[in-house]
């Protein structure tokens, strides 16, 4: 954890992790059981996938009747349970557990559909890549309302400590190259912009694409700031880059696409950065759905009462309840925090010290905003104090002298407003 420097006058300098000091990739053996999370809420009545169904590695599994939602099995075996899982802010998922069989069989539906990278069509990408490592934004590419005209390939990692994308760039530049060509041909979007940190510029120049360099300090690799600093387009408050025609895709997702068309197999392993209690980093590759406990076992990490497991980076990730929480397609890091390193969150009021104002990349009047959020006046917060301008970097909570959970206030405010708006729309409709 980076602490405040003695010279507190300066802004905190949070540098992104770099791959140079990371050892090679460690493969985790296939576990006994995996769990896949689909973003689709659990709906027992319309379930298409049945318990005890046998599945093959790389097989596309459609979940519900009259729905395009699918997952891709990362192992060969038998579906042991399909249930509901509730994540952060009440988000509902369908959890599919698959018991792994002894012999692995590779599904060939994709191979016959793809038929060589030259014929890669947008349809194939939409049909097979919604559940591949790196979480390619296929929904955005297929959304007729969005009219994507620019694709930004992000080769840097967006949160601290993570080196996953950087590793992919180092180890698999050809797949990225191939993936970009496929994306170009399939989406007909010619404006493909790569963004990378300084240390990656050399490697990426080999791709022949235009590469833009981003700053090495957090939060410059967050989409909203890339939009502002590199593309020179400011995303209107409350909107996402895709609303103004820009789609972000991670280097890993591009490599997934490139590799799959090369080999005729959908990738089923996820690469991620494991950060141990002593801040040592390892790069790990595991089947999607592998429980975190298997990974901890492989690295001899023992967890104690009141430690913390974070899926994602230290600034924007989310902590989980169970050691068995599975690796997902968008799990770029697993961070383990010792209970003694967990900062205290307090209910102390804002003292108006102004540290958050100085650090906020979005120029939000946080000292006033948080006073409204604390007492639940979300509409005032949105109308007068720029709630929707927040780009969710978490720096305000990081520097807060009072230890207030400001970022969480902001997120729950957005969530509550969203819920109220949805309810209103349903009532009116």
């Amino acid at each position, binding site marked *: 954890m980076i602490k*405040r420097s003695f*010279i507190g006058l300066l802004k905190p300098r949070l540098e992104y992790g770099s791959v140079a000091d990371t050892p090679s990739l460690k493969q985790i053996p296939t576990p006994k059981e995996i769990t896949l999370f689909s973003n689709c809420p659990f709906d027992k009545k319309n379930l298409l996938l049945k318990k005890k169904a046998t599945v093959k590695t790389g097989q596309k599994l459609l979940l519900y009747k009259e729905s395009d939602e699918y997952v891709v099995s990362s192992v060969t075996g038998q579906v042991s349970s399909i249930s509901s899982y509730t994540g952060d802010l009440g988000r509902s998922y369908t959890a599919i557990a698959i018991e792994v069989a002894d012999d692995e069989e590779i599904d060939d539906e994709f191979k016959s559909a793809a038929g060589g990278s030259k014929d890669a069509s947008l349809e194939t990408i939409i049909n097979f890549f919604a559940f591949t490592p790196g979480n390619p934004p296929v929904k955005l590419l297929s959304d007729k309302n969005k009219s994507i005209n620019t694709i930004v390939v992000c080769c840097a990692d967006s949160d601290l400590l993570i080196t996953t994308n950087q590793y992919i760039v180092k180890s698999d530049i050809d797949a990225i190259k191939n993936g970009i060509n496929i994306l170009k041909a399939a989406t007909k979007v010619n404006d493909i912009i790569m963004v990378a940190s300084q240390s990656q510029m050399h490697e990426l120049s080999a791709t022949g694409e235009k590469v833009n360099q981003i700053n090495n300090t957090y939060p410059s690799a967050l989409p909203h700031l890339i939009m502002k600093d590199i593309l020179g387009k400011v995303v*209107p*408050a*409350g909107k996402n880059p895709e609303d103004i025609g820009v789609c972000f895709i991670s280097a890993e997702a591009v490599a997934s696409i490139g590799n799959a068309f090369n080999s005729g197999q959908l990738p089923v392993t996820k690469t991620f950065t494991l950060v141990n209690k002593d801040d040592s980093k390892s790069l790990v590759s595991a089947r999607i759905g592998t429980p975190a406990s298997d990974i901890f076992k492989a690295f001899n990490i023992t967890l104690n009462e009141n430690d*913390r497991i974070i899926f994602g980076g*230290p600034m924007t990730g989310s902590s*989980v309840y169970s050691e068995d929480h599975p690796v997902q397609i968008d799990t770029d890091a697993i961070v383990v925090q010792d209970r003694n390193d*967990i900062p205290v969150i307090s209910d102390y009021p804002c003292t*108006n010290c102004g540290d958050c104002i100085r650090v906020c990349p979005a120029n939000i009047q946080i000292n006033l905003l948080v006073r409204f959020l604390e007492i639940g006046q979300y509409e005032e917060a949105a109308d007068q104090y720029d709630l929707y301008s927040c780009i969710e970097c978490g720096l305000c909570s990081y520097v807060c002298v009072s230890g207030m959970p400001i970022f969480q206030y902001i997120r729950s405010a957005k969530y509550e407003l969203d819920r109220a708006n949805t309810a209103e729309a349903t009532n009116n409709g």
Partner: protein
Amino acid sequence: MVDNNRFIVSHAPFWHDGSRISTRNYNIAFAAFPAILLGIIYYGMPAVGVISLSISSAIIWEFIFCRVTKRSLTIGDGNAAIIGMILGMLLPATAPWWLVIIGTFVAVIIGKQVYGGIGANPFNPVVVAMAILMISWKDIFDFNEALISYDLDFAMVYPLAALKYFGVSAVDSFSMGDLLMGKQSGGIGSTFGLGLIAGGIYLIIRGIIRWEIALSFLAGIFITALIFNMADSAQYAGPVVHLFAGYTLIGAFFLATEDSSSPVNFIPMLIYGAGTGFLAVLIRNIGVYVDGVIFAILIMNLVNPLLDKIKPKAIGKVA
């Protein structure tokens, strides 16, 4: 596998830079120490008495208030101690015990706690207390009278009072070096200019006070005093006296910069600081009070919420 461990599940971010309110307040106490030390060297045990009583009574008032209102105890954050300490620094060494206790009562209870405690006070608690004490018992704050029994190796004259009643010639004898070394009459911890400046610079570097406020306040004092001086140098003293006498320096680094009652945006901070400096000199030169810093800060505290409306545009904001 049976999951025996229970983990801490909370929300992002999972890092914190480790800053705390108590650390900030201890640093303020550390920064104020040189100024207090010189006051104690000059004025001896009575100064120790005033400072100690002020700190302890402020903490006790906060303790009593928390207990009476059944709120969690907040004396550990050091804020009450800092209020007491700064109030003590402003008082003359001869301040009677009841004055100190009334002062801390006003500061902690009326200045801070009735508004909801730390962070909610619209005025700097110490400044509220000082304003009330100065108006109610103004003889005690006649430093020349109050400190008459002291015979130190410098002229026991309160420069601003001399200036007010005897004109510019009366402060000619004060050199800048004398003023910086505290060779002037005044509050216990408010005369040692060099110590206050050192403390202020320390706080600025540590990022505990906002440099914009401190510097614009001093600039406001300097420029306003200079204009007066240029208009009529026989009647109005030059900027140096105004900068290093009275409560100017303690005001710049310890009073005007109080978090809750001052603005946080860049331009508002400059207006707030410069406005306070301007008003302070205005009160000194043409008002009835000898020193205007306290009232100037009080007035600018009042304007603070309005000033903070001048804010930079948030990104992505339409119109």
